[in-house]
């Protein structure tokens, strides 16, 4: 057993060196390339958010708080309720054990009630299932499903997908009953891509081993980030002694903390957000996957995903388009005519970017090995079953 694992370690190290070398050599060139071609703004015209808390029960209060915190932030930054799909697997605010009925707090000082008085939960309780999430994403709904429960996106939509709950290697548990796997998510996103249901997706997961959830993605223009690597737990941030349980997870807490300083017109980039969160004490290594994403993070505004910022076209004074022709309009908006066609990176240049001091290449090669292990284990299982059988027969 020792020898193979030693060999694997060696392999990982070699792989790591290779990637590091390749990226050193090419980084500068790639960066220059993007600098030249990059337009400063995204080409989306509308924003959507899918926020999922997949855990039930009172002791998972913090997961409800995570999702509600994100809900509050995207709503504050301008995504209307009609464009937010909020899935809460349990109603912590009305739980009998809640000392503050009707409220959900994410901080022991209880200054900010996340449940508030204007909240629209689209899927609640037992409606939060893997099937429903996949239906929301792919749009394969029964005709009777109301508008508020649908993700009515088009090819100009930026979507923020946030998942929180209990997860493991390549899965996220829903309600102690079922799991969504990384493959399900990847296939759902591919179906969205095929039907042009998004312009760009920001995928964020705060669960244990969250980074494994996006390991299987293969559709373009998806930026994925997670709170913890393979084999790592995602920890809660703080307890409230009156409520009696942990009230928020560390990763979400620091993301939200950063977002508090953002408003609709801020132009901070996602790189700023990720770098800031990575410096915090999380107990895990948050990861970012950028190889599918066409734009550099430093040029991607947070409000491209968390806000609802569309470029408007101001009309000429008389209000008569017919006489205006195109030049007059164009003078008003240089910014809206932009080209989002990004030449895709050659494959050897893309790498699993990670936050310092994370170790994604090591992790990704490990995941490959784990996959192989899966097969090996399966065969070992079959073999031992056969041995059992033979033994029973011979006795």
């Amino acid at each position, binding site marked *: 057993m020792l020898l193979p694992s030693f060999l694997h370690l060696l392999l990982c190290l070699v792989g790591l060196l290779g990637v590091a070398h390749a990226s050193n050599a090419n980084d500068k060139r790639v960066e220059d390339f993007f600098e030249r071609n990059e337009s400063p703004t995204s080409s989306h015209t509308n924003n959507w958010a899918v926020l999922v808390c997949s855990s039930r029960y009172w002791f998972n209060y913090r997961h409800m708080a995570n999702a509600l915190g994100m809900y509050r932030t995207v709503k504050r930054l301008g995504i209307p*309720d009609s464009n937010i799909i909020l899935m809460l697997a349990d109603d912590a605010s009305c739980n009998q054990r809640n000392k503050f009925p009707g409220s959900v707090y994410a901080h022991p000082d209880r200054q900010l009630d996340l449940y508030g008085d204007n909240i629209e939960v689209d899927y609640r309780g037992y409606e939060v299932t893997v099937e429903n999430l996949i239906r929301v994403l792919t749009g394969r709904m029964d005709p009777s499903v109301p508008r508020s429960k649908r993700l009515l996106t088009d090819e100009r939509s930026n979507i923020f997908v946030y998942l929180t709950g209990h997860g493991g290697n390549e899965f996220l548990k829903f309600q102690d009953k079922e799991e969504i796997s990384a493959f399900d998510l990847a296939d759902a996103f591919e179906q969205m891509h095929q039907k042009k249901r998004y312009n760009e997706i920001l995928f964020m997961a705060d669960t244990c081993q969250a980074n494994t959830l996006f390991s299987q993605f293969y559709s373009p223009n998806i930026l994925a980030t997670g709170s913890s690597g393979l084999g790592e737990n995602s920890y809660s941030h703080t307890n409230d002694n009156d409520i009696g349980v942990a009230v928020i997870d560390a990763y979400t807490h620091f993301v939200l903390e950063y977002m508090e300083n953002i408003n609709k017109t801020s132009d901070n980039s996602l790189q700023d957000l990720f770098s800031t969160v990575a410096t915090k004490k999380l107990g895990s290594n948050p990861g970012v996957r950028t190889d599918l994403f066409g734009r550099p993070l430093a040029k991607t505004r947070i409000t491209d995903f968390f806000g609802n910022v*569309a470029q408007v076209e101001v*009309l000429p004074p008389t*209000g008569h388009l*017919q006489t205006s022709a195109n030049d007059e309009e164009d003078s008003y908006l240089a910014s809206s*005519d932009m080209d989002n066609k990004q030449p895709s990176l050659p494959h050897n240049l893309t790498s699993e970017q990670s936050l310092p001091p994370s170790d994604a290449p090591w992790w990704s090669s490990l995941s490959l090995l784990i996959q192989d292990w899966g*097969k090996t284990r399966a065969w070992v299982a079959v073999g031992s079953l056969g041995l059992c059988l033979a033994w029973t027969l011979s006795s």
Partner: protein
Amino acid sequence: MTSPSTNANSSWPKSLRDPSTLYFQKTSVKRSIIKAYWTVIICAIPLWWYTTSIQRLALPTSRVHSETETLHTLPVDVCWEGIPNGLAEPVRKELVQRSLQHKERWNGLTLEPFRYGNCGDNTLIIRNHNGPESIHNQVLKISVEKHVRKDGTYSRHVVDLLEDLLAPVVDASHFNNLAVQYSSRYRLSFSLLNEDSAAGDMISGWNIEHALRVHITPLLEDLSSLHNFTIESQVQFHAPLAFRPAASDGYWGITREDLNVFVNSAEWILSSSSSNDHVLHFVLFVPSLNARPLYILDNNGQSTESNSFLLPQWGGIIIHNPSSPSHQPLPPADLRLTFATFADQLSALLGIPQLPPSIKQLPESGHHVLSKWQMDTLLRRRTIENTIQTRETLRSIVNLVDQIENMPVGQDVKDDVENALSAYTEMWTGSKSLIDIFTLSADAFNLSSRAFFNPGMLALLYFPTEHKYAVYAPLFASAIIPLFVSALREIVAWKKERKDAKNGSSVDHTQGTDTPNTS
């Protein structure tokens, strides 16, 4: 060797019975129990197979690929009236040349040879007319002599003009950005929002039915062959902004950044959510008395004359500063201006091509507001858009079904795909009027979308192989192994019995031979 039954009396306590004498330990009973188990299992296998397999009907994959790979073009039919044959041929040649150069602009369009002389009712007509250029329904009046000479030369102007009319600049980002995607149904929502009536002044209402009748309905009627519209309207008396306008001397201003976030979606409820149609919003915003007049600022921070703006694919907004404080409904003059602007915004959002500036549009006959030139261009644009969408959707359906093995394909999906495909094929066969081609393209698009979004086409949950082992092994191994082993042993015993019987052995072998003999 003695029979165990004779020993039993001596070796077993009275309270216990010899197991071999129990009725269910009889060989025949035991064997029939095992047989029963196996019968149930074997009978259940088809049921298990049926319930765990997915219905995947074959889609016409190869037809989809072959049909969608052929690129089709829509003919553009133009007829010259009142000029001698062949005179406009150089113009046509130049236009064809341009359609090759400006591929994006002429995407999917081909120019039919110009026709001369007797023009039909359904063609676009260019008529010789000395005077200002004008357009009226299907007739474009230009001075042919001025632009096309007998020696075969022509002016650039006429070629530019025709290109602008037939293939308006759909600078890809502009068209896609501003105009909404095609949908057969739209909901138009008109809202009059008073920022804060409590501050003292407000517009208490508007005569919307009249305004719609005059300004919007004619446009909608012209478009009735493309879309169905539903209209809703509302008046709100408290609709706060999410930001504070910048105060200047004597007025308030909205910067460009603020314009981008003007819509306060958290607090404004702009449309009912009763249907899944695409909603286009039209908002007349009346600033609070404390923040009047409210102007849009340009990039230098100076106020501009503009008071309206468009949010791409979302709708249009007009900021209205009432001239004098009142509690009255919107005055007729303002109403007219407002709805004229809304109508312009609506046509921009629906992708209606605008006429080149040099052309004057004469009032159309009847209630029409759009000339046939514009209608045809719009129909062609939408047809091409639908064609591309249908092609991509059909291709992605067959690709996904190939790619994702767990994806069920039911009869309704298959029917929709086949119908979409036949509508798509039908579009390009025979000679049809533009409106028929468009209707087929819309059918093909709607059917292919419906097939794609069919709720039954949900890929079943993916389980890695090891998960399957993990689920099946504890469930079945513990039951199957004893069953299997006991069946095997029973068969072995039975064979041995038969062999012994053949050998003529007189000893009565039963399974009881294994019981320990204590004597």
